[in-house]
């Protein structure tokens, strides 16, 4: 249940963060989406021996967090998900034969290098996607996908899933409260009733969702999105995209940023 509560809290936090009005928030969603894809592509294209080259990419999330006034603790909570991967890797790879590898001027084992590489890549990819969501409202993102010719039915599903989520939670609360009132001394739901309760939540939610959808249709909803917001590329969008493209290109194909980090160390 704690997983569920955490996920709900995270969803609401990201939703509220996306409504801020910073320079990053006001950028075109296309710009942010393309930048995020470029960042992730650069990260995953590095092999495990290129750890030093990946470190300068941390400047991307750090600068965006600072500019867009997003509380950094929101992101650190989410980073805990990589811990199981690291534990499994440690457990399995510890039995593997050790080979030597070099990181900066330190000689470390190949396994440790792989684990460091995975941790860095996980942190960076998580940061990149979270920053996109924390600085872009879901409706703007949906319109962005639609402008990119994503199928209407898929976008509709994307938004309905997000919106019906609260409806389902409400139904879950009602059913759970009813169960608690009928069996007040039982802390957990009996296993034999769990399937029936899940089914009941599903049927009740479906009926309510159908009413909501029919009401939407009666008010003229056809599944298409209409907006008066301007989605044209501005000068700031072009500058933003060019800056990060150049930054990533330098990290990937030159040693300039690596030399900079080495000088700092």
């Amino acid at each position, binding site marked *: 249940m704690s997983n569920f509560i955490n996920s709900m809290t995270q969803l609401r936090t990201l939703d509220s963060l996306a409504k801020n009005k910073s320079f990053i928030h006001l950028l075109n969603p296309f710009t942010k989406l393309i930048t995020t894809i470029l960042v992730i592509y650069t*990260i995953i294209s590095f092999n495990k021996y290129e750890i030093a080259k990946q470190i300068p990419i941390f400047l991307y999330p750090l600068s965006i967090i600072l500019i867009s006034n997003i509380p950094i603790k929101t992101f650190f909570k989410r980073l805990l998900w990589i811990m199981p991967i690291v*534990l499994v890797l440690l457990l399995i790879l510890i039995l593997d034969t050790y080979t030597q590898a070099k990181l900066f001027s330190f000689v470390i084992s190949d396994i440790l290098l792989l684990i460091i590489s995975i941790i860095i890549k996980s942190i960076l990819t998580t940061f990149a*996607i979270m920053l996109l969501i924390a600085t872009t409202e879901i409706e703007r993102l949906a319109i962005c996908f639609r402008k990119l010719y994503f199928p209407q039915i*898929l976008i*509709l599903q994307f938004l309905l899933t997000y919106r019906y*989520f609260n409806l389902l939670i409400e139904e879950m609360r009602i059913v759970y409260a009813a169960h608690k009132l009928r069996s007040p001394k039982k802390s957990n739901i009996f296993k034999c009733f769990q399937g029936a309760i*899940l089914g009941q939540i599903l049927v009740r939610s479906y009926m309510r969702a159908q009413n909501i959808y029919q009401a939407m249709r009666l008010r003229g909803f056809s599944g298409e999105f209409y907006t008066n917001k301007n989605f044209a590329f501005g000068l700031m969008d072009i500058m933003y995209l060019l800056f990060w493209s150049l930054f990533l290109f330098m990290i990937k194909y030159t040693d300039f940023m690596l030399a900079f980090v080495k000088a700092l160390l």
Partner: protein
Amino acid sequence: MHITDIFLSPVVAVSMLIISVLVLAFAIKRVQQNPNEEKISLMGVLSSFVFILQIFNFAIPNTGVHGNLVGGMLLSILLGPYAGFITICSVIIIQAFFFMDGGIFALGCNIFNMGVCPSFIAYPLIYSNIIKHGYSTNKIYIAVFLSTIIATQLGTIGVVWETILSKKFIMPITNFILLMHSINFIFSIIEGVITATVVNFIWKVYPGMLYLNIVNSRVKKIC
């Protein structure tokens, strides 16, 4: 079950994305040929339901590994393979964007492993064949349980080969395959039980929600 960006090479990720997009385009075309107003709200509710199911993680003792339910079979059973596939795609996209399960580059692989395998392999080959002569509690349990386990294991094969082809894992292949299949087998049993119980309940209480409504099709044939 979600494979993440970091375990994939760009070539594998993009290739799988192209395959998944083609399958998705085919599924969308088939759904648009027979538009059903009621199905759209059901798709929305079910995607939220599967989304919530995927949030609940199951911990495997002494391994530190957490996995989640897939829900692809449940969606195919209630919506049909095409609409079910579109719905699982939207769930995977939301999971990737909002909960960082998987990732943007891994979308193609995840859609293939968790969407194509249950909707286009396990559903038509196993579930439909067992159920085609009518529903009963035993048949539902056997069909759902078998198809869920096979869909999950096929998805696991996908995960294993995508990781191997990406050359991002230095573990011996046999160990990796055994570990992945054993972990996902446990999840598939849990998922099979949950899906079978829910489908059985819906068949008893609200059979109109099931995609392959045998009773209705027989009535139509008689008429």
